[in-house]
């Protein structure tokens, strides 16, 4: 890839007069020495799997293997149908879809890691709900997935994307940043605005620890995916309104790395801190151990 920072990415897109998504397709073709048809085809197949996970998560039984979680997306869907959500129909759809995909993940269903499995609900939640609302074509959505990938590529190489390395800020936070930037572009924002959306979104998760109860990717991961999808919508709206990330997004990415490195090991996916060490978290862990970790 010929860019290492979001500033470079946005400058190169402007120079080439391309969206981030379009630019990333060309970069991927160059890097992989494959045809555009192949790389776009692979991403398109990923989008179909994301849509299927949304469908499954919001309509089918999704009990996790541990038995700790499942069914929350359906609960939110039913509550939405009553018409009284505080978020309103659209944002609550993003929330429900993100929960659904995350629950499919916890139940050992098929998902796309974006960027990881622990954060797999956010991009489908944002993409599928906004596609339904705005009537965008699949081709447009697939191009935007490349934009999300370009943003994630910068974050992953300059900071972290896994909770084990950088806390939940790196996992859910990266996905929110990727979704926010891509949605800004889907809604007609410039690459500069998309990059501001990334910074705005990422700032909101700085310091977020990875504290999975019982060490499992369920509690609090599933609900954080739901919250993350809504945050991405908010960040895109702010960026499209002209709100700028005063601290440049590349600096936000840099500081996420510093914060992650400074986090004690107990707060990085070890289940030795945070929610995992609350009285209830510990009780759940000891139950899981007694059952051999399996329901």
């Amino acid at each position: 890839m010929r860019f290492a920072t979001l500033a470079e990415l946005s400058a190169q897109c402007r120079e080439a007069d391309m969206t981030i998504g379009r630019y990333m397709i060309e970069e991927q073709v160059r890097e992989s020495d494959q045809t555009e048809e192949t790389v776009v085809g692979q991403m398109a197949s990923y989008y179909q799997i994301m849509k299927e996970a949304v469908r499954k998560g919001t309509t089918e039984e999704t009990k996790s293997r541990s038995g700790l979680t499942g069914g929350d997306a359906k609960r939110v869907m039913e509550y939405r149908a009553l018409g009284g959500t505080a978020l309103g129909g659209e944002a609550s759809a993003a929330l429900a879809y993100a929960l659904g995909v995350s629950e499919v993940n916890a139940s050992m269903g098929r998902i796309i890691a974006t960027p990881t499995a622990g954060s797999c609900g956010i991009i489908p939640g944002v993409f599928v709900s906004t596609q339904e609302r705005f009537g965008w074509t699949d081709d447009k959505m697939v191009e935007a997935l490349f934009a999300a990938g370009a943003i994630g590529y910068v974050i992953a190489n300059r900071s972290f994307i896994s909770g084990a390395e950088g806390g939940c800020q790196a996992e859910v936070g990266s996905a929110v940043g990727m979704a926010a930037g891509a949605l800004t572009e889907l809604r007609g924002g410039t690459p500069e605005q998309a990059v501001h959306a990334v910074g705005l979104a990422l700032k909101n998760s700085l310091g977020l620890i990875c504290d999975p109860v019982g060490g499992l990717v369920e509690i609090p991961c599933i609900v954080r995916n739901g919250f993350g999808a809504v945050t991405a919508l908010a960040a895109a709206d702010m960026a499209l309104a002209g709100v700028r990330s005063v601290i440049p997004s590349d600096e936000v990415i840099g500081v996420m790395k510093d914060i992650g490195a400074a986090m004690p090991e107990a707060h990085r996916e070890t289940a030795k801190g945070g929610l995992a060490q609350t009285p209830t978290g510990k009780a759940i862990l000891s139950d899981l151990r007694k059952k051999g970790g399996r329901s």
Partner: protein
Amino acid sequence: MRFKDVFSIMGPSMIGPSSSHTAGAARLGLTARQALGGQPDEADIIFSGSFAETYMGHGTDLAVTAGLLGCAPDDERIRDSIALAEAAGMELRFGTELRPGGHPNTVRFELRKGERALTMVGCSIGGGNVEIVGVDGFDVKFGADCPTLLVNHQDMAGTVAAMALIVGRANLNIRAMDVDRQSRSGRALTVMEMDQAVSAEVRRELQALPQVERVRLIHLNEEEGQE
């Protein structure tokens, strides 16, 4: 750059719940299967670090077993893999161990198939990516994300050059290379990570070198790595 392209961020397509604990684990199982050269009759699977703590809750045992059965990380049979392996007559044993200083998500395989045995140590390094750090007592390092040749040979002057010549003549580019030996003039293992697929003919040519004992190919996107 640790992450090289868009698909190391977007994807893989996988069975949940954890790219490290299931997708990476399935890839480790598949790599071990190919390094052994087929489906094991017996498998000891020993987890350490976070794998040892949470492998049951995450289905890491199921994912690793599915890999040994030849399943890709997005194969829905992962959920039932232990039952499938038992039905296929595979003898499975799971254990845990401490590996001070090792990667937090590490698994050691002790596999047997007829006369053949394999020890492999691999780590799941995030996002479904893996790193193999040991094969049959040799310290190696490869990601199994591209066609990878494992060549057992005698440690002799000119061997690496002879191997490089063969792959070069076939117009194959070596992306990375790692050589480890047990002792001077003793047994050695060379790992060549390739940019292109490696044909059976190239493998035969390598095998025909007098100092070469065994040539294996790890190619996870292919149905089966080949001996």
